[in-house]
């Protein structure tokens, strides 16, 4: 992160009549020789811990750059928690935060242009598919994630899930009595919701999860359910905007709501709740960037993030940590349909169907 930092170049030319250069904050010392090969786990290390060699090299590197799709206030809190932890070994953390799409676009553009600035890239599972396919990520099995279920990590260690996104159907409790509330995804196709259903216009990933996991790739079935659902629903833009409108009464149910943000509104007393019987779970998780400047510091961060401390920090932010047992139980549906980078190849078929039926292209 050395060169990018704080080079302020303010040209207030017209007003002051001259350009004035801002201060350049001193850059941190260039890291010493970064080993290109990933260090193997030494046999003497305890399970879930890093070996002494990696830690030593990481200390020399002294800094880790995290690209994340966490919101800026959340990412700040994660960075603070890491900085406070003993297991950061004094390594400085710098965060670049953007929404998944923007983050990946920025990352890919940088790498293509020959500048690798990120050490760890953390974003949505499907969004990870692009850098994965391009071979921009490094395989390394995070010791702390050894006990994670298979759906939540790549067998080769190219990525691990750190947090989960639960997609569900939310409903306005003023408009919908508990008995009438949807219990399954197909319930949204019930004609009683005609004109009362909102659907987020970009939630293809939910359809992907349902199609691949619930309907086992039966595209005819998927098309049927989606068509009948869309007979009831109006597309809307943005999860936040749509859940606000649901609460305000613009719709009775919201297909594709985020459980954790709906939960926050519910906790604040808003007349809203969501289906807990089944849900599509998306994976957000980090991968180690190939050719990164601080590979060992990246490993230190990953092991902290996927370990108890990092997962606890996520849970404190009302997020759904991936580590088994770490999550707030209310947020996890009984039946889970996982999506993730492995489903990325199927994405475009669902995208086409979505465009046709939801966006009416």
């Amino acid at each position, binding site marked *: 992160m050395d060169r990018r930092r704080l080079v302020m170049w303010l040209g207030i030319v017209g007003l002051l009549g001259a350009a004035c250069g801002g201060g350049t904050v001193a850059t941190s010392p260039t890291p010493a020789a970064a080993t290109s090969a990933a260090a193997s786990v030494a046999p003497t290390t305890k399970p879930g811990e890093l070996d002494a060699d990696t830690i030593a090299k990481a200390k020399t590197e002294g800094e880790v750059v995290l690209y994340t799709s966490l919101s800026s*206030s959340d990412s700040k809190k994660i960075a603070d928690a890491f900085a406070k932890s003993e297991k950061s070994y004094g390594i400085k953390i710098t965060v670049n935060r953007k929404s998944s799409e923007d983050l990946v676009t920025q990352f890919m553009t940088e790498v293509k242009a020959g500048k690798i600035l990120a050490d760890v890239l953390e974003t949505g599972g499907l969004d990870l598919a692009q850098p994965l396919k391009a071979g921009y990520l490094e395989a390394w099995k995070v010791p702390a994630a050894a006990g994670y279920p298979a759906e939540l990590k790549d067998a080769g260690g190219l990525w691990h899930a750190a947090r989960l996104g639960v997609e569900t159907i939310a409903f306005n409790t003023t408009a919908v009595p508990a008995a009438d509330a949807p219990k399954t995804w197909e319930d949204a196709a019930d004609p009683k919701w005609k004109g009362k259903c909102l659907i987020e216009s970009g939630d293809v990933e939910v359809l992907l999860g349902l199609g691949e996991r619930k309907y086992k790739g039966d595209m005819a079935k998927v098309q049927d359910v989606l068509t009948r659902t869309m007979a009831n629903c109006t597309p809307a833009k943005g999860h936040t905007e749509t859940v606000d409108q649901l609460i305000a009464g613009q719709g009775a149910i919201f297909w594709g709501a985020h459980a954790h943000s709906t939960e926050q509104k519910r906790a604040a007393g808003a007349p809203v709740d969501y289906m807990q019987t089944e849900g599509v779970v998306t994976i957000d998780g980090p991968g180690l960037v190939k050719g990164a400047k601080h590979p060992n510091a990246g490993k230190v961060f990953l092991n902290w993030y996927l370990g108890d401390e990092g997962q606890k920090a996520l849970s404190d932010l009302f997020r759904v940590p991936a580590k088994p047992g770490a999550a707030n139980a209310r947020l996890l549906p009984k039946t889970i349909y996982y999506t993730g980078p492995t489903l990325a190849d199927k994405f475009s078929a669902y995208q086409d169907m979505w465009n046709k039926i939801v966006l009416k292209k």
Partner: protein
Amino acid sequence: MRGARRALPARPGSGIIVPALAALLLLLLTAVPVATLVMGSLQIEGRPGFTTANYEHVYSDPRTYRLLLNSFLYAVGTSILAIGLGTSLAFIVERTNVPFRRGFFAVTLVPLIVPGIVSTIAWIYLASGRIGVLNRGLMAALGLESPPFEVFSLLGMVWTEGLHLSPLVFLVMVGAMRAMDPALEEAAMTSGARPLRTLRVVTLPVLVPALAAAALIMFIRGLESFEVPALLGLPAEVPVITSEIYFALRTYPQDYGLAGALGVGLLLVSAVGVWSYGRLTRRAERFATITGKGYRPRIVELGRWRWVAFVYILVYLLVVVVLPFLVLLFVSLVPFYIPSLDMLQKLTLQHYVTVFEHPDTLRAVRNSFVLALSSATITMALTAVIAWIVVRTTLPGRRVLDLLAFLPIGIPGLVLAVAIIFELINFPIPIYGTLAILVIAYVTRYLPYGMRTSTAAMVQLHRELEEAAAVSGASWATSFRRIVVPLLWPSLVAGWIYVFVVSVRELSSSVLLVSHDSTVLSFLILDLQQSGQSNAVAALSVMLVLSLVVIVGLAQRASGRFGVKEG
């Protein structure tokens, strides 16, 4: 105007260097992103070589033409509404003896500072057929069966965007009205024309160049606007080009080819606007209405219409400023929004606390301010010089400059950002991740607006005024600085304010270019919005509005003290 175009007899040296540098800078700013857009549209990701497949795909699809038509209708409707409101308002406030006219100025500008996403949401809460408070109120009061308004419609989209843009027209027209020779109207009055007739037959036609420029800017702004089509157009099933480009760039992998082909389409529709503008002002552009004389604006005595005009302005302020602001204020003070007075019992300041406690708030405000200041200044300085080259010289290729300055219209902000990253990430001076790279993006994006303002003003400036400076021994730079800039000042200031405002709002290219240290307001708002803090966004907007009113009010007091305007 007498005399053919010819270069001014300027001293060699300074007369060449500044325009040459400006032209070079323009080339660098625009050519690379445009090339990226066009090259991208001729390629398919992952396949070597060039192809016209994207164009075939896009333009063989009848849906594309529906999108173009929607975009066109939306942009035309928006600009008509904005022009009508903004011009009438400018006339009343600037030229009549309406009561409290000076007080209106600051309040009229309020919508400028409200982020597009926020004002759009405010209008959903006001005029949605299902939950809009206006609808509910009117239905209850008048016993109506169905809601009188529906914001989720083409009309609703035009309404929301048109209201939002009307203050910009107001600014442009105030500048134009101050530059007009009042004798033109007096001549009509002494010829027997009544005030309304004078307005229709003389005032408005003389203002045609300014009106056309404003209409063009609003049209283009309407074409490329995103929030309203996304939030209102999607549910209303009125898709436009920008939402299509958005989706093309939001699929995996990003379809730059498709976005490029659509962007070129957007460019063509914009060209229709420019062409109409050219037709409309072919003769009018030669009106040399600025003769170097200072004009005391002629105040029209309205008589008993004075109060009618006053009510008109009050209604405008109520609809454009007060109602949306009240909704914002309400949303910012409740834990979550429900259109019910019961919520008044749950008032809370928690969202204001959220904004203040957010780690990026102060930095974002500061950065946005610095950025908007620099972008507006650089854009207007650059386009003033370019406009001079285009209007005043006979240099071959000056038309190319005009065209180049216009091209960024068709480049989606995100594509521009990608091009800029490619161009500058390995630049010897490390500007990637700094505010400087954002300045570059903003200046590029808003060149077309600056260019329209500067050109429209430049053609109205008598050549002799500059020639007088030249024969007085002034160098090009001196003449430009001492004669051209001061005479164009009102227009340049209007353009400056415009670029300043849209810079604060800019989002689509900022999202890729900001770093942790260079975060900006619009990005912070997006971040809050995406993490579910829509009420905090409202709180932030309320604070922005209040600070704008204070700043403009103070600025006005200051300018009033220096006697800029006669009261």
